[in-house]
């Protein structure tokens, strides 16, 4: 196991992200910008546009590399030389596509990584577009560079199949986000969001590290006791082997609990959620969109990979019966608490961002249902569970980016993001109202929008996993959630507006909104477009 030169294309999107981040930082710092407001605005635009163009390019590279759309044929002898050169280039790029053993055992490039990369880079692209026309700030370069660093961190998180890499990736993405959340440091609410995010985050990292060290210690000592060769005891595959060699190891269960707690903070499930409403409300809205979608998705994918590749020996079962043990049981309890708490506490909220924060806590509970299906040993079931997990994350990312994007527009135009600021929006900008309506209905799970399929798949997975109680409660909670989602519709369509002055959507933000609306509709009307790709992701490398 060593690093080959051919491994570089496999890391290409991450390398490109890091290079782009340094470039953006460079143009901002090294270039001489004037101090008048006009050139400062120009400075912000330049950094943002560079980031957006770069991210678009990286997205295309990652998409081609993933082989989801097409496989580039090898050039034959009579191909035009220029075309042959391009084909070879593309072929080399796709050689880094899905498949192969993890790089150094630590960085898996399987279909899961490919899908996750596309989600993160896409989300970062849309976030950048949202931020382009947002309120200008002092140091635009570092703002966009931090988004890029965070995206790279998420990519590593999704691909990590080794504890140290997983931890560092998680920190890379989190620390960038702490700074971004507190970016408007002169505003009390933003500063509070930053510091709160940081304090909770660092404590959770400690817990996560503790769980990791337990897993490491367990693996190393089992290997030692069995007289095995020296191993890298932080690899997920080695932990799984040790778990299989020593069944009933309660130390491993303890490790799972701590790891779950650590990552549970990242995905904001009850009881590790308490930071999220304050952070979501206080952070600049584009960053809220990014934290609530990409960061959460990264957490879920890391959680999924850790659980299924490192701890398959203690999967357990999620039905509240005699066989109640292992991490699926733990997830079932967490899911139950999360859907109940998230949805009920969203009811009294008056601030739209805060309301969506609680609603996204509730959504995290639904997502967990999809992971429960790993309890079944049948490959069909596992494929379905994985596909529904990623479908949920994809649909949720598209929807929430759009929803928070719309709130960012409203915040800029109306000056607030309380529910009452949405009053009579249809009279002020009917396109925006329509798009936000679609987003909210998708979050509420109304067919045929993608949010409905996502929830339905999650319920199917949960039911098949035997967690009838959790599924029933979750289904009941969708009714509760409908109440507050309808509140959006009521405010926008029924309540009289404060003023009839039109609300203007800046063009870049409009692009984000339109793209996410199209995604929500397309994924909903034609789920079979992506389903086959998602189904392939079950073959997790390192398992």
């Amino acid at each position, binding site marked *: 196991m060593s690093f080959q030169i051919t491994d570089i294309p496999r890391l290409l999107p991450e390398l490109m992200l890091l290079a782009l981040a340094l470039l953006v930082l460079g143009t901002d710092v090294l270039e001489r910008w004037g101090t008048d407001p006009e050139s400062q605005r120009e400075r912000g635009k330049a950094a943002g546009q560079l980031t957006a163009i770069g991210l678009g390019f990286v997205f295309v590279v990652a998409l081609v590399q993933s082989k989801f759309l097409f496989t580039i044929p090898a050039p034959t002898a009579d191909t035009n030389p220029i075309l042959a050169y391009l084909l070879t280039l593309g072929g080399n790029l796709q050689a880094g596509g899905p498949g192969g053993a993890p790089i150094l055992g630590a960085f898996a490039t399987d279909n899961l990584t490919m899908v996750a990369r596309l989600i993160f880079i896409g989300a970062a692209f849309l976030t950048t577009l949202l931020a382009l026309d947002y309120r200008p700030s002092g140091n635009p370069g570092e703002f966009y560079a931090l988004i890029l660093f965070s995206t790279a961190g998420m990519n590593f998180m999704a691909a990590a199949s080794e504890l140290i890499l997983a931890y560092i990736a998680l920190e890379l993405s989190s620390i960038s986000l702490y700074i971004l959340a507190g970016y408007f440091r002169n505003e009390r609410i933003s500063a509070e969001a930053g510091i709160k995010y940081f304090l909770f985050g660092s404590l959770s990292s400690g817990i996560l590290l503790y769980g990791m060290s337990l897993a490491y210690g367990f693996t190393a000592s089992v290997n030692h006791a069995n007289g095995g060769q020296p191993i890298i005891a932080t690899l997920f595959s080695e932990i799984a082997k040790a778990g299989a060699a020593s069944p009933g190891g309660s130390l491993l269960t303890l490790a799972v609990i701590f790891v779950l707690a650590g990552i549970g903070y990242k995905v904001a499930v009850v009881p590790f959620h308490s930071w999220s409403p304050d952070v979501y409300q206080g952070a600049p809205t584009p960053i809220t969109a990014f934290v609530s979608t990409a960061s959460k998705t990264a957490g879920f994918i890391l959680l999924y990979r850790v659980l299924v590749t490192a701890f398959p020996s203690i999967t357990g079962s999620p039905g509240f019966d005699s066989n109640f043990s292992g991490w699926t049981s733990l997830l079932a309890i967490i899911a139950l608490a999360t859907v109940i708490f998230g949805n009920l506490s969203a009811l009294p909220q008056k601030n739209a961002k805060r309301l969506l924060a609680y609603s996204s806590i509730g959504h995290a509970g639904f997502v967990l249902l999809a992971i429960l299906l790993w309890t079944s040993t049948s490959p069909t079931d596992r494929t379905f569970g994985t596909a529904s997990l990623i479908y949920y994350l994809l649909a949720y990312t598209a929807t929430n980016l759009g929803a928070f994007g719309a709130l960012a527009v409203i915040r800029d135009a109306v000056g607030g993001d309380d529910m009452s600021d949405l009053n009579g929006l249809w009279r002020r900008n009917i396109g925006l109202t329509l798009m936000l309506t679609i987003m909210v209905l998708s979050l509420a799970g*109304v067919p045929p929008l993608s949010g409905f399929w996502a929830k339905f798949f999650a319920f*199917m997975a949960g039911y098949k996993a035997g967690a009838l109680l959790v599924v029933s409660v979750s289904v009941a909670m*969708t009714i509760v959630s409908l109440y507050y989602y*309808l509140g959006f519709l*009521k405010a926008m*369509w*029924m309540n009289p507006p404060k003023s009839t002055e039109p609300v203007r959507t800046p063009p870049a933000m409009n692009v984000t909104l339109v793209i996410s609306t199209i995604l929500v509709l397309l994924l909903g009307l034609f789920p079979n477009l992506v*389903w086959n790709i998602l189904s392939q992701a079950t073959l997790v490398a390192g398992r």
Partner: protein
Amino acid sequence: MHLYDLPTGVPWLSLIWLSMLVPAIIMMFLKPEQKYAIRMTGTIFAFISLALSLLLFFGYDYTSAQKLQFVEELPWLPQAGINYILAADGISMPMLILNGFVIFTGALMSWNIEERTREYWILLLILTAGVYGVFVSVDLFLFFVFYELAVLPMYLLIGIWGSTRKEYGAMKLTLYLMGGSAMIIIGMLALYYGSGLRTFDMRLLAQAALLPTSFQIAFFPPLFLGFAVLAGMFPFHTWSPTGHVAAPTAVSMLHAGVLMKLGAYGCLRAAMWLMPEGAHYWLLPIAIATLINAVYGATIAMTQRDFKFMIGYSSVSHMGLVVMGLAAGNEIGLIGSVLQMFAHGVMTALFFAVVGRMIYERTHTRQFPELGGMAKIMPFAAFVFVIAGLSSMGMPGFAGFWAEFNIFMGMWDRFPLISVLAAVSIPITAAYILRAMYTVFFGEVKDPSFFKLPKLTWQEYTGASILAAVILITGLYPSLLTEMIGSGVRPIAEAIQHAGTLTLGR
């Protein structure tokens, strides 16, 4: 009636529901000020959908052994057993033309909506597309998608264009119906995995041998109750009068006329067809609930002072009879039930047209003490109201008679006592309908300003005449429908009877 053979290869059923979605999309490109164009587009397409339904109705061959005709199949998400499958049988056919009649007349009654005309029509048409879709879906998942599509626009329609306590009524209605949906989802999941087939195709799921009896008994209630909420079954009926009163006229017509039938249709199509043994087990509790529905609903209707509330509660009472026909579980009861869906749909649409559009929109009151002598002012309204009223009372020669007669016969066969007790609702119904007729139409004119009310428009004349004609034709020639309905419900009735013999044999 099988008058002619329709060419195969034409996606007839898709055309019907698309004929409601296409105008909705056209309207999105019209300007809000082009009210005439919007109304005309909506009405013309509503007429097209009615014409298509009638074309299919007379082209459906109920003597054929193949009950599900005009089948269309397209893959949607075949990996998860979800497909786009449409087909129609003897139960869906009357429902299709019912929906056609109600949306066409409802469109005619909507010409007076001045506020946010475009949005109103778009939502109305999307709702109707959903209703059409439900009546022709054979895939349970697709069925559910259309079902939700039919239910949700209601929130905005009532909340924006409604009247009395509209926001409360809209929210209550939506939450109740979504509560029903939640139960339906549980039932769907159970069927999907319980059958072991991993498909939502109801034709496959209906093979009763797949589902063990204990399973059916456990999962019949969620599926049935989920739909019964929309059918207004006791004790889940309270959303319906509030919602009906709050809704604008065309919406109450559609809601009481068609949407509540969607619930009863779902009970029959999804719950009873797929789980006949479960249905047989639960017949008695359902019958008792519907007895309360019929009698209690009628009693409450009698005490109302608000005209629209009275109609709302009369809907609860009549829908109770629909579900009672289902609870009879035999062929005659099921025929009566489906016929009652049709008869009540047309009748109640006519009621709401008269009360909501002709009277309330002009006088701005619905209180009995303030109304009176309307027959002198708008004799046509009085005339059609009497027709609807007589049908509602179950007078022979009107549509309602045949329906109620069959329901009571079916129930007599199953639970004679309940049949006798439920018959109490007939005189009560007669009492409140006659009282309404007398106080509103035939008393003294209470308010002289009523003489200055605007005349009825041609849209109101046309719409109400069509509905009244349908009531009379069905009343005089019921076998136009009953033969076809019989062919549709026979397999379900036989499966339930068979479940009965199984229980006895044990």
